[in-house]
């Protein structure tokens, strides 16, 4: 982290602020979605300590979709092979995100790189892409702030959801639909994007 001393303190503050402001919409989304995932884990997971496991799951996978989809497997006591297969299917898209980050993250300290790769989730990736810093060092600082902030939102959301779900009689019947809805939204966006790109390609061709 010492290398960031090369950036003036005021500039560092500006970058931190920019990362925070950019992350505000994700704050809303992550805390709410995380809350729903935590409640689901607490009421359907059949665990004694849902909050602890939700927090650990959130910190280790940083994958919203997985936090929802893993709940039935946890509840049914499914095999680890099933967990691996589900994770592979759900998070397969992450295998493509890194391609856009190859150049910008080349040659950075291993620990920082691992943290960035570890937390390369959908929204976080989108914010990384949207970053307009041209200086590689500043860009990296921005990315680190962006990842750290958003990961913390996700952890806070899932943990508080699990605590609330275990403690309060939240009406939970039918909350499973949140997972289906999440997938439906992702698919809708993908189809819309795909259609838009196809249209663009067509008009370019003409």
């Amino acid at each position, binding site marked *: 982290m010492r290398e960031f001393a090369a950036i003036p303190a005021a500039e560092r503050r500006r970058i931190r602020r920019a990362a925070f402001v950019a992350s505000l919409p994700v704050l809303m989304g992550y805390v709410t979605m995380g809350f*729903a995932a935590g409640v689901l884990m607490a009421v359907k997971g059949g665990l004694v300590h849902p909050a602890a496991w939700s927090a650990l799951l959130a910190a280790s996978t940083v994958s919203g979709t997985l936090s929802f989809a893993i709940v039935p497997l946890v509840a049914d006591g499914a095999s680890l092979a099933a967990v691996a297969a589900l994770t592979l299917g759900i998070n397969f898209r992450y295998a493509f995100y890194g391609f856009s980050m190859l150049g910008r993250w080349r040659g950075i300290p291993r620990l920082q790189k691992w943290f960035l790769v570890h937390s390369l989730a959908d929204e976080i990736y989108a914010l990384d892409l949207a970053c307009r810093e041209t200086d590689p060092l500043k860009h990296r600082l921005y990315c680190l702030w962006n990842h750290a902030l958003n990961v913390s939102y996700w952890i806070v959301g899932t943990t508080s959801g699990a605590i609330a779900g275990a403690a309060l009689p939240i009406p939970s019947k039918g909350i499973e639909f949140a997972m289906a809805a999440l997938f439906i939204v992702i698919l809708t966006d993908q189809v819309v994007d795909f259609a838009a790109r196809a249209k663009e390609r067509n008009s370019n061709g003409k």
Partner: protein
Amino acid sequence: MENEAARMLAVIAVGWAVTFALRLVPFALFARGGHPAPKWAERFGDFASPAIIAALIVYSYSGLEWRTAWPYLAGVLTVAFQLWRRNPLLSILAGTVFYMSVLACGCTTERTIEFDVHHPVVTVAPEGVYFADRRVRPQDVPRILDDYGVPRSQTIHIRVDPRLRHSPEPNFLMACLAKNGYTRPILVSDRHAVSETIGPVPRQFETWSRDDTHDPPPSRGASRGKKR
């Protein structure tokens, strides 16, 4: 509790390992050279990831009341909101709130909540005859099965409390079913016939369940986990 810790640690470790490995793929593939993302990878991603998400929608619907129209209506509502406002949170909230309120109103009947057409189970206990968590008269069972749309050729399990093994109730129920064309009832002797079907164990059963050494009373966690 230790079981839970060991299992959850293993589950989370697997989830983390697979997720991290996936995220690492591009960095591992192109650790040195300055290649841009290969074209084939982008193309593949364009098609593979919607296909996977579509499969996941099917998977998640299997946990819903998929025999009724409601989850599909909720799905349409979600898509509509997403196309209209492009706000994922709003769309998910709209669909979920709609679906939850439908369930809360009881718009889906027992037929779909507690009852599976392919595994109809009638329980005969000293307290009476139970079907789909309701106490019913034995002579009404064929009509109710018909209402639920159970085909006449369907195997129907009749769980009989062991204490009623030699009493006329099960036979009377069989006769009622046979008379109405349900020709494939199966008598199943089941010591848990009542406690599982109706929920809390009635007082007169308490000694019996305490003496039952085969199945210790489920812990809070286990009993919650078993649901589904």
